[in-house]
């Protein structure tokens, strides 16, 4: 009887999750089994998957996604941790600086990307103007015109946008480290680096893994910045998987193929999500055994 009530109480949540997650995912998978040309639809089974997995463009995009995500997440963590340590040490203007550092994260990604698009404009952009004024470059640089610089530019903007979130997580982690540990280390004669290595880092390690996993999940499916700044160009040089998906669906009008790319991307994200869930479970076990 109690069990039945339990299911009854769960039912609204399950219905809601079913409506907003299971049904759309099911529909996306169903679409991926069809050849969709506009409103004309025909069942093709796994043909879309076969075609995509045999297409160089997919593997190229996967490579771009891995590079974009790997470099972005690495820099998010590095800079986020550095800024968090800096803010943790500060005794004045901490709140003001925290808000200032958080600003890029508060701006909508598409808006931020549009601002950077104009800043990086070759002829009339501020970045080239400043670089030329400082005699760093002699001719306008087409930041978004070459695959290598375009990828670097979108990564830089992603780092600008994503660092504050990691910084916030790290700062929260730093503030949970008991002051006694630092005092004990200081008594033992530990310097700044040793305090970081033997006190801060072991306390933050778990948080770093969690933050990086969440950040990977968040970054690998990120579309906005690349979509606005380069739309995947030039010559596919920044066409990460979400951009390939968008271009396949809305530019090439091949919704079946796009849905198949979406399902493959989901599997990729799911792998990291499972890793994250396992990590969280491990933490719960460790906490309960303490």
């Amino acid at each position, binding site marked *: 009887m109690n069990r039945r009530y339990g299911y009854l109480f769960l039912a609204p949540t399950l219905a809601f999750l079913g409506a907003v997650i299971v049904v759309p995912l099911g529909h996306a998978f169903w679409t991926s089994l069809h050849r969709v040309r506009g409103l004309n639809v025909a069942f093709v089974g796994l043909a879309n998957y076969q075609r995509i997995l045999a297409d160089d463009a997919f593997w190229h995009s996967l490579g771009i996604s891995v590079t974009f995500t790997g470099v972005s997440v690495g820099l998010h963590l590095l800079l986020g941790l550095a800024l968090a340590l800096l803010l943790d040490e500060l005794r004045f203007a901490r709140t003001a600086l925290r808000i200032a550092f958080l600003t890029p994260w508060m701006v909508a990604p598409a808006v931020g990307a549009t601002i950077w698009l104009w800043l990086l404009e*070759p002829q009339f952009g501020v970045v080239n103007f400043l670089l030329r004024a400082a005699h760093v470059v002699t001719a306008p640089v087409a930041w978004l015109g070459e695959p290598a610089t375009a990828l670097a530019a979108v990564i830089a903007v992603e780092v600008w946008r994503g660092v504050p979130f990691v910084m916030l997580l790290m700062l929260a982690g730093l503030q949970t480290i008991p002051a006694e540990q630092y005092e004990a280390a200081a008594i033992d004669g530990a310097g700044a680096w040793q305090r970081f290595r033997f006190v801060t880092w072991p306390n933050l390690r778990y948080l770093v893994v969690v933050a990086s996993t969440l950040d990977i999940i968040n970054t690998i499916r990120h579309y906005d910045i690349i979509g606005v700044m380069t*739309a995947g*160009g030039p010559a596919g040089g920044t066409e990460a998987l979400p951009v390939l998906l968008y271009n396949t669906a*809305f530019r090439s*009008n091949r919704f079946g193929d796009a849905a198949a790319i979406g399902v493959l991307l989901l599997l990729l994200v799911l792998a990291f999500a499972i890793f994250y869930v396992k990590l969280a479970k491990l933490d719960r076990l460790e906490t309960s055994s303490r």
Partner: protein
Amino acid sequence: MKLRHRVRALAAGVLIALSGAAIAQQPIVLQWQTANLTESQYEPIWKKTIAEFEAANPGIKVEPVLVARKDHWTKFVAAAQARKAPCIVSVDLTTAAYNGYLMPLDKYWNAEPAAWRKAWSDDMLKAMKWKGQLYGLPIWGGTYAEIYNRDLVTKAGLDPAKPPKTFDEYVAWAKKLSGNDHWATAVLGGKTDTTTRVLLTWIWANGGEAFNADMTEATFAKNPKSLEAIKTYLGLVRQGLAAPAPTTTNYLEQTNLYAQGKIATMRNAYWAIAKVVGDNPAMAGKSFVTPIPANVPNAPTLATVTASSISASCPNPEAAWKFIKFDAEKKWAIERAKVANWMPLRNDLADDPAIKADPMLAQFVQIGTHARSYPLPHPLWADIAANDVVDAVQKALLAPEKTDEIFRDLDARLAKKLKDI
């Protein structure tokens, strides 16, 4: 029945009647989406068109859907997939019709008087058809020509009265028009179909073809004349005769560069001049136009045809047709030509004094007498023009030494794609 129940029933009846009347009085709302509603030079005209249409048709409201040019097609596709597309749209007609996004207009067209229908040539209407059915009414167009900044041409010691007529002469001019921090022209390589439009003008001007007659085969590399034209055009960048960053240069960047005097010439349609003057009013009256330099006699240029269509999901097609007809009237065609520099497509306007009074428009009309209609009539054209061809152009701009190989790959890729319908 008790009095209380009678009063309740009466009140309910009155409420139902009132709400029914309110629903009956709701005007029909037609959404209207074109790529051009966000262009400042067109804004006063479309606002006036809507105001006058609504005044003449009190039961119909027209709601413009303002979308950035580069998002126009994707927004339309997303809405069409959801069966919520704006009623009146101007899109790549063959592609949209093939995908089932548009409604055939034959029923409405055939119901119109023959005298009215005669305003559009059979050739033009042919371009509006897919599988024998009419999907759009031609509203305006644009002929591609070479537009020069007279001041910069004169400053370079060149004579505006003797513009280049061949590729070699064009390159010779380009060398004189280029200098420190300014260039002769801009090569378009940005990710829109404008890149493909300009590329086609170069190919056709050299006697080449990008496709075979029935569009089952691509000949960008297969046809030596096409490849030669592509190399000449894209080679302008390597020679320092075209503005840097071609892979991010589109219509907006090109007209911006021209308006700011950074480039001396641009290949574009008449509307670009209105855009340039809008960006920089000091450019008014400073441009002159010539036919595209060509290596073969009577080489065709490219003429875009923009049509108004009714989306398949439109719940009020009669009202939509009414607006399309209104928008196609002579009065608006002349307004568009005079203010936004969009060329009228009606036969009965060729000799109109208002059109003839504009010498530059007359020149564009003259250049357009030998033009090919664009978009090309293939169901996958929107994708091919904005993606496949642009990708090849971008790759060739980044690795010019591989141009042959890149366009051979494009031919092979398109050979499969053109048949995949």
